Structure formats: C-alpha cells, structure tokens
C-alpha cells in the first residue's frame, strides 16, 4: 500500500499509473445508475449493482438502496465511502429526531438532513443521493440531492453516471398517474438501457417499492431484464 501511495504521488501528474493496478490506486466509486418515481400511495426506487475501482469491478452485486428509516430509503451514487458515511450519519440523526417527535419522520426532513451535510461539506464530498419514501402528510415523495448539495422534489428523478443515457427515455415514457406495477416496469426498463450503455453501471437491477404497508424489495437478474434496445 505504501508503494502504491508513493507511486501515486509521482504518477498523478502524468495522469496515468502503469506501475500499480487500478484496484490499488483508484477510489472506490459507485459508478451507477439510480432512479426513483412517485406514484399515488408510494414510491418506486431502483439501482444497478456495480461498484468499480477504476475499471475493475470490485463488487457486482452491490446494494445501493439504503434504508434510512422504516418508510424512507436513499439511492447512493458517487464515492462509495462518502455516501455510506453520510447515510450512516443521517440514519442516526433521523432516528433520534423520530424518537423525540414520537412519530414517523417526514421524507422532507430526511432529505433536508442529507442536503445540510452534502452542502456544508460540498468541497470534500462526492455524493449524488436520491431520497425517497412515504409519510402520512404528503404520501409518496422523491427528493434529489445532487453533487453540490441542491435539494429539489421531483416526480421522477435519475442519477449517477448512467443517468445521462436515459433522460430521453424517461422524459418520453413517464406519464403521471402510473400505478405501482407500471412504475416498476418503467424503472426496470430505464435502468436496463443505462446499464447497457454505461460501463460503470451493470450487474443486477435492485428495485424497492415503499408505501404505507411497508417496503417490498425485489431483484431482477441480468438475463431477465427487459430487452428494450433493438440493437
């Protein structure tokens, strides 16, 4: 490891390091495609399952859908270490707040906690997070907190390196008033397309639907993915 770090300092100016392999020098990144969709009564969230260190696939079955509270999840993209650390802190803060309130927390509260952290430490962090869940006041909600620490609520949100390839698909296929099954198919389709095009996304599609009843998780394996592109 010491060799790798010494080599890195010398080599970083040249932009490439041939003396140690990627997995000893590059930061672990959840390359990624993540997505969340609101429907009447809840939200559907989805993510791919690839974690890369440079070009090496360090984990091909990653779980990027992280529970923050009983009815609130977050989708993580960017630096794996940063997003895990932020999610852990917010989980603690939200749990504490919920106990004080003696009520389930609002999704907007969770989203604001993420925003506070991502904005305050924006220079040190590389994290793009989508917060989604259900609460009694406003039902299903999706809030996106991209790199830099902005916060905005959207009916559909995509994130991660693979999201750039599916803006067109999402914009043309989204209809308001979709039910849970339609949202699940829409999300799986969008993620499949992104996973095919983006080298940093791949593996399996993890989906979850969150509603008043609770959280229902499912996995779609590579060979069962919807075939959308006719290539």
């Amino acid at each position, binding site marked *: 490891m010491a060799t790798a770090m010494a080599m890195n300092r010398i080599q970083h100016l040249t*932009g490439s390091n041939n003396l140690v392999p990627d997995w000893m020098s590059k930061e672990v990144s959840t390359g990624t495609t993540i997505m969340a969709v609101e429907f009447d009564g809840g939200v559907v969230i989805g993510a791919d399952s*690839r974690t890369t260190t440079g070009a*090496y696939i360090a984990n091909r079955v990653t779980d990027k859908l992280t529970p923050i509270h009983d009815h609130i999840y977050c989708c993580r993209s960017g630096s794996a270490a940063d997003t895990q650390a932020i999610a852990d802190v917010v989980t603690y803060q939200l749990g504490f707040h919920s106990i004080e309130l003696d009520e389930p927390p609002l999704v907007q509260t969770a989203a604001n906690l993420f925003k506070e952290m991502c904005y305050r430490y924006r220079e040190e962090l590389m994290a793009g997070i989508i917060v989604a869940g259900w609460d009694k006041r406003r039902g299903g909600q999706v809030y996106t907190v991209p790199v830099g620490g902005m916060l905005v609520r959207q009916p559909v949100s995509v994130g991660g390196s693979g999201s750039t390839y599916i803006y067109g698909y999402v914009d043309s296929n989204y209809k308001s008033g979709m039910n849970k099954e339609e949202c699940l198919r829409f999300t799986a389709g969008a993620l499949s397309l992104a996973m*095919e*095009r983006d*080298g940093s996304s*791949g593996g399996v599609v993890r989906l979850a639907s969150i509603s008043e009843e609770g959280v229902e998780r499912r996995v779609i394996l590579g060979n069962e993915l919807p075939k959308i592109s006719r290539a």
Partner: protein
Amino acid sequence: MSIMSYNGGAVMAMRGKDCVAIASDRRFGVQAQMVTIDFQKIFSMGERLCIGLAGLATDVQTVSQRLKFRLNLYELKEGRQIKPKTFMSMVSNLLYERRFGPYYIEPVIAGLDPKTFEPFICSLDLIGCPMVTEDFVVSGTCSEQMYGMCESLWEPDMEPEDLFETISQAMLNAVDRDAMSGMGVVVHVIEKDKITIRTLKARMD
C-alpha cells in the same frame, strides 16, 4: 486517462492439441460509454492464421489493414502462405518502425504452421517485443483478470471442443470483472481442416 484504456477491450489465445483458439470481446466504447457491440478485433491473416488486436480502436483498424497489405505482398513474392513465427516477426518489425511514436495496440497471434500444422501462439507489446509461450497469451484492459482465469483453467493438450469451452469461460469471467470490456465474446478455434467461429451469449452490461 491512459491511451491504452481509452476504448477498452480484451483478446486472448490458447494452445491445444493440434489446435489453437483465439477470442476477443466485441465492445467498442469511448471511456465509460459503449458505442457499438459488434467491433471486430480478430482478423484472419491466412488460412490457419489469425491476429487479435487490443488497445486503441483506431490503431486496431489501421494496423490490421497495413499488416494485411504487407502480408499480401509477401505471399505474392514468396508464392506460399506465411509461417506463424515469420508473421510474428513481420508484426514486430511493423511496430518497431514506430518506436518513438507507437501504435497503441498489443497484438496476440494464433495459428498453425501451413505445412506441419504445428500450433503456435504469441503476443507482442506495443513496440514489437515478441513473446512466444506454450500455454496462453492475453492482452487488454482486463489482463490481470485474464491471467487469473487462464492460469487456473488451462491444461496442456486439450482437444478442440475442450479448448473452446476453456477459452470461453476464461474470457467471459474475465471481462465480467472489467467495466471497459465485454458486450459479447467471439471465439475462433483453428484446426488442421477447419476454423470454427462462434459468438458467445454474454452479459451485455
């Protein structure tokens, strides 16, 4: 950003009993983005001779074309097919001519001698250093993964059917751990009387 990993890609070759196999992935991408899934990296240079080129895509195409040109002239002058070892020297010469402004490719050659049908595999670096081995050669962005797979799966004197299965599994599992390679695998098995070309069903991510 490394020039050798700008487009990504992987090729390997294995030696068997009176046969050789050469395989490549099919992806053409620009850094993380995939552009096409049917990019040719293995080129036929004789009835029983193939070369696989991994590295910068533009050089893969240019070198294969310039090499074919030199090979055609050789065959016209000599009136016979080239031996694999001689072809290796031809590739080495072509690459070393560009010693101080090289082609960014690392080729892999697999073939049978036109007269004795002796199997032959070798690889070269981007400035033409040749390396002949008895077992397997690999080249590309996932070379570490390919070395691991080959070292564990290869055994000497495999029949063509076994060699096909072995090289297929080695390629598939190596490229599945590399974000810049994959999108399909094509395998050529070269025997005395035929070449079998198969495209494998692979992960498309």
